[in-house]
């Protein structure tokens, strides 16, 4: 299968005054379409930085990042926003729903920034996604009226609304109990089965078990890259 994500010679430095912090040191990585990847590593290993670059929220200091064979490491801020809104879906540890919006409105938010005219049809699509994640009964609820697991399911529905190539999860189960975590991971696995590429950061080994491939980072290097047996 073709690589949807291809990273070559990726370097990321942070500059704090006179001090240069070398967070990512010449990383090479390919992720195939339809893969399910867990990024692991202790804090300071550079996994969050790598995730931010993969999520087009940050730009590498040097090296290339091809998403869908398109070099996006040099794109400007507006173009990166475009890439995020069209090709990427985000799931965060703290769900990051907008508290003033209802479930449906939260789900349709990415469409707004794609410049899609929100109409009955798009709304129907959002309702469909909400039903798919099991929240068909709570369309008009606001995030604070939902449990953590339910909020994360809304976030999953939101990440799917623009039909992305890659779903990026930043510790998607970090705030959830183990039972709910299993539910969420089952849902992600289901999405992976229907062809979505998923990349997630996690601390926990039993969550990483769900992935097909586990990449461990340490001190800005890829320490290990292991395929789980199916």
């Amino acid at each position, binding site marked *: 299968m073709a690589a949807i994500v291809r990273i070559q010679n990726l370097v990321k430095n942070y500059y704090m005054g006179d001090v240069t912090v070398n967070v990512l040191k010449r990383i090479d990585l390919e992720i195939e379409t339809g893969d399910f990847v867990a990024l692991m590593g202790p804090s300071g290993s550079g996994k969050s930085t790598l995730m931010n670059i993969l999520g087009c929220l940050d730009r590498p200091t040097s090296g290339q990042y091809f998403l869908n064979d398109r070099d996006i490491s040099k794109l400007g801020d*507006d173009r990166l*926003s475009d890439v*995020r*809104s069209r090709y990427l879906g*985000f799931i*965060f540890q703290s769900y*990051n729903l*907008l508290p*003033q919006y209802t479930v449906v409105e939260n789900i349709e938010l990415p469409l707004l*920034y794609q410049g899609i005219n929100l109409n009955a049809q798009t709304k129907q699509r959002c309702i469909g996604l909400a039903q798919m994640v099991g929240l068909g009964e709570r369309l008009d609820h606001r995030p604070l009226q939902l449990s953590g697991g339910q909020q994360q399911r809304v976030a999953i529905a939101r990440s799917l609304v623009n039909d992305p190539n890659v779903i990026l999860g930043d510790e998607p189960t970090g705030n959830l109990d183990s039972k709910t975590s299993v539910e969420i991971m089952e849902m992600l696995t289901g999405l992976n089965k229907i062809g979505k590429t998923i990349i997630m950061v996690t601390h926990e080994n039993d969550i990483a078990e769900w992935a097909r491939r586990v990449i461990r980072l340490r001190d800005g290097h890829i320490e290990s890259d292991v395929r789980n047996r199916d």
Partner: protein
Amino acid sequence: MLTELVKFRRNTILAIRGLWLHKLRAFLSVLGIIIGIASVIALLAFGKGSMQEALDAIKRQGATNIIARSQKPPDDSATGSRSFVATYGLTFRDYEKFENISVLNRLVPMRVFPREIRRLERMHNGRVVATTPEYMEVNRLEMASGRFLVQQDGILMRNVVVLGSVSADRLFPFDNPLDQTIVLAGQDFQVIGVLKDRMPTGGSGGSQAAEDFNSDVYMPLPTSRRRVGDTIFIRTSGSRGAEKVEISQVTMTVDADVDSREGRQKVKAVGDLVKQILEEGHLKRDFAITIPLDRLEQAEETEQNFKNLLVLIASISLLVGGIGIMNIMLATVTERTREIGIRRALGAKRKDIVLQFLVEAVVQTTIGGILGIGAGIAIAYGVPFASSVFGYRPIPSAPQWDSMIYSFFVSSGIGVLFGLYPAWRAARLDPIEALRHD
């Protein structure tokens, strides 16, 4: 472009909804703008209202009039004339020259002198006004009975008079004065009409001083020249003197629209012309020219100054209001840093964030502006109403619709002006930092 409009509309709806969630807070933050706009609209209405009264009064006097009057020169002896009769003032030659000014609608000469009027044993010390038929029109006199002077009266030098209501009452307390005879300057005059009672007011078309028209007696100007003459003897205890004045006053009405610039220039040009004619024909400064338009323009200038002052005050209060909005918006941006990060991660561009916060600021100030306009209208109508309810003289108030339209746009403009910096701050946030923000 269409997508921008869609975003704009959606942002507007969401902004209104967001404000509705924090009603009190939104209201307090735009209170400065509400008060500023309301006070400007109310003050403009009151200012315009009271100014309107003054302007209307001047316009009623005839803003297109030019009034030339005879005036006793300050020091007659300086001319070297030692004559017993003081000769001064406008002459019939001046009047003929005035008649050649083509843009005049009307020329009304007047000759005014005090005289004793008798009828049988009754006597009335009145003021004789010798004039032409147009006088009635210029001064808006109304007849109680009979008729006013007509052109033929002058041409034929008829001995006819029209009495003011008080003079009629004095001379004919019990019977109808019409067609009866009075004696004036040793001549018999027939009464052809009596005027209705009229409030003594600032003379319209006449001098600026209050005139009591009611004890006047009117006669044709040619008759007066013929029967009374130009020289008027004045007797006071211990001394006596005489004045020779051919015409006391000429009121000229220029055919012009006083509300247009051209009309005003025409009136002024005629005023200059009249001045020139008089200065050429007179050695002494024995005349005065009054142009009510000058007073009108002074009043208008005063009004304009008042308006400018209000605009200044308004700008200051709106500046304060705008800074209040900016302050709140900056706090909001900090408070919603996380939201900004989420939106950026989901694909919002910087300009989307700018648009969102700008729309919020503009919606807020525009609603504040509308509330201010509403409050201003309420004050502008409510205060005169309340003052009349409580028995005070109603404060004149004329709400200005154009000021409301300006206020509307100015309040939106404040939103843009003072929302821009907070919106820019919001858009400049680093998405990663913003997402990490609690």
